[in-house]
């Protein structure tokens, strides 16, 4: 596949991620912070997000499984996850966290457990999407091309 084709494929994929609500404008901010002096910025932030998310999800699973549930602690973890997902533009994960926090406030453990599953699902979804996107970017750069600049309005 030649570079132009790859770039078009990338654009199409990005557009679909936005249309489907996986990513929001914040992700574009990240792309804009990447330049020749920091060519790996997006990959680095996204990788950090994956590591951090997996840690939070582990902590959350542990917290909801406790005999005596500490809703404050669960809320603190979800607040963290909401923050990090918002920072990279993972919109669906962020929204799932918002819903989760509401149930923490209500101290509804069954709803919380269900929310945790939701958040996990959304995270896995966006992780797959981002990995695909970053793989496409890698291929473009390896073929000597540059990653297109996307406008979002």
């Amino acid at each position, binding site marked *: 596949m030649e570079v132009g084709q790859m770039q078009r494929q990338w654009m199409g994929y990005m557009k679909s991620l936005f249309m489907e609500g996986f990513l929001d404008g914040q992700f574009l901010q990240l792309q804009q912070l990447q330049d020749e002096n*920091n060519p790996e910025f997006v990959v680095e*932030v996204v990788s*950090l997000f994956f590591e951090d998310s997996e840690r939070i999800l582990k902590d959350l699973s542990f917290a909801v499984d406790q005999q005596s549930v500490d809703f404050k602690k669960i809320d603190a973890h979800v607040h963290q996850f*909401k923050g990090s997902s*918002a*920072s990279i*533009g993972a919109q669906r994960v962020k929204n799932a966290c918002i819903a989760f926090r509401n149930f923490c406030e209500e101290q509804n453990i069954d709803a919380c457990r269900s929310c945790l599953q939701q958040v996990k699902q959304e995270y896995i979804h966006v992780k797959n999407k981002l990995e695909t996107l970053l793989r496409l970017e890698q291929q473009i750069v390896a073929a000597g091309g540059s990653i297109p600049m996307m406008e979002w309005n």
Partner: protein
Amino acid sequence: MGMAKENQFHVLAVDDSIIDRMLIERLLKTSSFQVTAVDSATKALKFLGLVEDAASEIHQEVDVNLIITDYCMPGMTGYDLLRKVKESKSFKDIPVVIMSSENVPSRINRCLEEGAEEFFLKPVQQSDVNKLKPHLLKSKVKEEKEQPINN
């Protein structure tokens, strides 16, 4: 007192989130700021040379032109840090900016009343960071005015 690099402002960024630290550092560096990023208010105070007891404030070697801190942090909050900085002899004139993921008017007002220059909603944008230079330039002018004239 240690001098900041010529024409470069030094910003101390405080955030317990590793992702947000990375983001704010990149945003600040894009604006040509020199950045020191720490993950807690306690570490920020240590970096500034301010210990818990204000009476033991030592002569500062560190030159920080602005502090930007997250509000919600485990242990000491950004608000606590703001207060400690404003109470200190050496750093009370340093502009402090608060960041928060939550839009709580009472929180915002409390920070501004305590002396914060700006309150940024997260995720912080380039347009927010662009608002910082005027505060830094204003401090620089004030600092220069307070210098004894050497003949």
